[in-house]
């Protein structure tokens, strides 16, 4: 049984006084249990819409979706016992309650007794280094602390699937790294029983954390695979960027498939690493070389090849 299975999912939005929008167009996804799965795409791609469908907040217009074997149309209550959702930039909560009180309230909504909640919350607050802020009111928390609290809320029920919708949005680098590190440990400790579905537009985040990634844009899944499989989909397999003192002394550039010249820098993309030797041989005889760097494709390059546009990541 897959953790999540979506077949031919379509989601339309039709409202008066608003243009028609096709948010999801024939989406097919299969997420195996125990995996850290990523949905990578730019803003407006349909990631959040898909996650809302999986977390029973939204119904598809057509298609079928099952989460842990339960149909989202008919068995939403069964699903809700087993999942948790954490979104980025989340400012929910009651400002006058403390962190502990807020978490206890949600624990009770998830069927935990007060003692169970107390034990779980204290344990998790210590792990995310928020135990000293236990009694701080929500309206006094910083963005980073708030997101850590949201993460505790998501984890305290020990869900079978944790849905993360841009969880590191707006966090500083250090806290974002902490969050990512913790999530990797959490899924590892689950011994195959815990699944994470992460949506992000940060290429590096998807690359670092996800075992399998689906690239989504304009409501369509463009390609699915591991990080390395997706990188193979880039237009090139290796790129050399050579910087010179002034003029570019390189000749025979027409031999290469894709060359880009920018004042004193030349970028050469090769379909295969076999031609690298030719570049090194040519460079041996040149003077005025400042630097030569070798790059392998990133997910950004894959995205560019698949869609013709950049991912617009900010990290």
């Amino acid at each position, binding site marked *: 049984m897959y953790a999540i299975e979506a077949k031919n999912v379509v989601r339309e939005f039709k409202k008066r006084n608003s243009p028609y929008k096709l948010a999801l167009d024939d989406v097919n996804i299969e997420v195996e249990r125990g995996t850290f799965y990523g949905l990578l795409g730019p803003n407006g791609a349909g990631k959040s819409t898909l996650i809302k469908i999986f*977390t029973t*907040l939204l119904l598809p217009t057509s298609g079928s979706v099952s989460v842990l074997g339960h149909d989202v149309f008919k068995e939403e209550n069964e699903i809700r016992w087993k999942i948790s959702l954490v979104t980025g930039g989340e400012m*929910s909560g009651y400002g006058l309650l403390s962190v502990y*009180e807020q978490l206890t309230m*949600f624990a009770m*909504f998830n069927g935990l007794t007060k003692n169970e909640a107390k034990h779980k919350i204290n344990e998790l607050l210590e792990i995310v280094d928020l135990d000293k802020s236990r009694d701080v009111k929500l309206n006094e928390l910083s963005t980073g602390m708030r997101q850590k609290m949201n993460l505790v809320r998501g984890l305290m029920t020990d869900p079978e699937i944790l849905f993360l919708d841009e969880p590191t949005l707006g966090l500083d680098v250090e806290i974002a790294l902490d969050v990512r590190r913790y999530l990797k440990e959490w899924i590892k400790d689950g011994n195959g029983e815990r699944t994470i579905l992460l949506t992000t537009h940060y290429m590096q985040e998807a690359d670092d954390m996800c075992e399998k990634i689906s690239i989504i844009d304009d409501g369509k899944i463009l390609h699915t695979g591991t990080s390395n499989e997706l990188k193979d989909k880039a237009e090139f397999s290796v790129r050399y960027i050579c910087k010179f003192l002034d003029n570019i002394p390189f000749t025979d550039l027409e031999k290469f498939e894709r060359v880009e010249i920018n004042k004193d820098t030349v970028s050469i993309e090769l379909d295969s690493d076999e031609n690298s030797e030719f570049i090194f041989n040519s460079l041996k005889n040149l003077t005025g070389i400042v630097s030569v760097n070798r790059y392998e494709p990133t997910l950004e390059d894959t995205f560019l090849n698949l869609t013709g546009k950049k991912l617009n990541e900010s990290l």
Partner: protein
Amino acid sequence: MNRYNYKFALRTIYGRAYPRIWGVLREPSWVLFEILLPVLSIVAFIYVLRSFNADPAFEAYAVIGGSMMAIWFNVVFAMALQLRWEKDGGNLEFYISSPTKLSWILLGMMVGGSISTTSYTVAIFSISSLLFDTQFLWSNWYQALIIFISCVVALYAIGMCLASVFLKYGREFEYYLEMANEPVQLLSGSFFPIFSVNILFGAIASLVPLTLGIDGLRQVLVVSEYPTLISWEIETIIMFFYALIALRFSKYTLNYMEKSARETGTLTLKWQ
């Protein structure tokens, strides 16, 4: 084992009532305005009545009516609009995606809200009656308590039904609710005995539980003879049935509205 048992229900109700009660206690200035503003409103109406050369009994009517109107405002703004506010604040999606029932969460709001509202109402009533030295039949306090509790429960139950309407229809419906404030003041007879206007008018107005609650309280508490059509006992029974029907109905409206909102996508759309 049925996971949706009474213990889970009680935990949910307690969980949601908690911020309602403690939030108020942590912000005492809020309490001041929840009491001061209705008192000012009562003072204003009493002076209007005095300018009309009204019988002093009308001042007692105004104190009761004005105090009870505070419940209506609380039901409307703290109950009916609550799910809309939760949506705008980002809490609603977490309520929905949690396994508990939305109706239990609303019950928690109702419990928390009614505790705070009851204390405000008692304070408003006490201050207003002290200010104007209005005389009440305090020997009938237990009857007044029964009527009051029935009215509060009935109104909050209606608030629960309205909450689901707002979940689906959102912003534009809020407009109609705000519009209803003055008509409700009129129909409930907040500042005059509803049945002295016209029997038919009074009968139609009795469709609003607040009307029955105010009328019942006036019957048992006001010293002078009070013109009415229905006895307070019957009014209490009617309010009790209102509450039962509204609570039952709210379960269906909530389920229907949630399903409908999931289909149209309005469940998580803010500022809609």
